[in-house]
């Protein structure tokens, strides 16, 4: 079990008292909770659907024709829904040799630049993802016969949510290069196989 590992200090700013900030914080924790729950549901559903199909095929000779397709689309949604929550805990592996070697001020400037680059990439991905959705709405999926736009929507949705989550931790990231602590994963172990 790695759940009892020492976490990293939370990087979010110290509690503020202004009512607007507290409302924003509550909305933010709601967004994160829903986002995380959707990821859990997607993975759980993927496993159940694929397993049910295998079990059924062996036990009854029947099979669920849509299982493979739905499982693949759930995995696509899982990946894009995960961009933001994974970023929050520092789970996107990066080479931090340069920022660590720089003096504090220069490192802050570099991390600010990096954060701007990432948000810029997210915006581009939303833009081109939106174009992809518009193009794929008329197409339908082979088995389930729904609009492929429901699948391709994962790209702009995921990157839009990612911007929300990035903004939630960007202050701590730029200031000290730290992220939120989480019982789910430790930064440094994600992205590893």
């Amino acid at each position: 079990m790695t759940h009892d590992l020492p976490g990293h200090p939370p990087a979010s700013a110290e509690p503020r008292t202004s009512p607007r900030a507290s409302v924003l914080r509550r909305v933010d924790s709601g967004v994160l909770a829903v986002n995380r729950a959707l990821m859990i549901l997607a993975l759980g559903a993927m496993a159940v659907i694929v397993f049910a199909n295998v079990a059924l095929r062996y036990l009854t000779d029947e099979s669920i024709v849509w299982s493979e397709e739905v499982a693949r689309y759930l995995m696509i949604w899982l990946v894009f829904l995960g961009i933001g929550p994974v970023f929050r805990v520092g789970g996107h592996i990066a080479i931090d040799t340069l920022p660590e070697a720089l003096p504090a001020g220069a490192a802050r400037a570099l991390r600010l630049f990096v954060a701007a680059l990432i948000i810029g990439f997210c915006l581009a991905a939303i833009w081109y993802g939106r174009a992809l959705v518009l193009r794929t709405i008329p197409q339908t999926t082979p088995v389930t016969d729904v609009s492929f736009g429901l699948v391709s929507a994962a790209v702009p949705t995921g990157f839009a949510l990612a911007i929300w989550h990035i903004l939630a931790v960007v202050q701590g990231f730029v200031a000290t290069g730290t992220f939120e602590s989480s019982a789910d994963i430790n930064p440094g172990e994600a992205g590893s196989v």
Partner: protein
Amino acid sequence: MTTAILFGSLVLFMALGVPVAFAIGMATLSAIVAHGLPPIALAQKALTGVDSFSLLAMPFFLLAAELMTGGALAQVLLRFAAMFVGHKRGGLGYTNVLALTFFSGISGSALADAAGPGAILIRMMRQSGYPVGYAAALTATTAVVGPVIPPSIIMIIYALQDPNVSVLGLFWAGVVPGLLISGSLLVYNFWASRRRNFRSEGARPGGREMLVTSLKAIPALILPVIIVGGIHSGAFTPTEASVIAVFYALVVGKFVYGTLTFRMLPAILARSAFLTAAILLIVTLSSAFAWVLTVVQVPQTLSLWIGSLGLDPLTFLLAVNVLLLLFGIFIEPLPGVVVLVPILAPMAATLGIDPLHFAIVVIINLTLGMITPPVGSLLFVTALVAKIRMSELNRELYPMLALQILVLALITLIPGISTALPALLGSR
């Protein structure tokens, strides 16, 4: 020119500290714009890059390993391993290597090995008076067999990058090299235990106790047979085998060992979902990267060029090894495989190198990058679970790493170590 932009910007972004996934995406977008390709292709390739049934095996094997750890299968395997070697001098060291090797037959990742049974063993070795640095270094180095012995997440991803190999062929090809790595570490532990006078753990258990421990271990030991045997016989695909592993781990953990509760499931699922998303974002964005490579014909050009040099295959393999070891200091196996294999595998094939042999060399080499100081995810995780400083770990690590580079050289020089078993069993 486009190639220069693609690789130049990738290196630049990564050096600045942009996360690898985003750096791959940004480099791809830059090259797409520079080459005048439609940028919508980035979104499209990023979507279709994970639209693969065989890739589903990746999250499932990850989830199965997490369930195994939560369900105490790791402890059962550990007790089983201890029964044979615990009473010998340096017994917990041998137990460490054996237990992680058994666990590798269930898990597909080095990290799962280090964070699961590895964490428990480090704690036991510390209590028994071993230097913690030694325990952690041995765990980190042995964890390298996780992705080499089947099942293996990196092999599932590798098979998507090189059409000349199958997941099953890779699985079989990894068995002997994986056992060779474990064997070399058993020998190292033998030598270190004599030299440093490590202790043993009491007497060999009695026959009755050994029988009970073995019976208890059967459900855990049988799973690798179900996975690899099931795929080999054609009974199910790797993806189906992986999902069977998930439910097998669930049932065994819940009803046989009784250590897994349903209340633990959301946390286990969340952890697997986070790891999956982090890994597959890199995979899917790099499929856009690989698409640009093909459009500008980089693999084709390089294959022609390498073919025209009249190079000896062995020279090429050695050059690749040096390149990847240097690369591995900074780069994880996953980006290494998804960015470099589409280029290197066709070159190797042009020179007549067996694709399975090449794959095993690349996978072991890049996995060693996870334990190459100063940074490496395996070092990070083992130092974290052992609660020691990285420098304390690294001191003990160097001789073990050197030994693994020797093993890698052996596997590079003798293709049969990788290719004999798949050839014998008739799988590519």
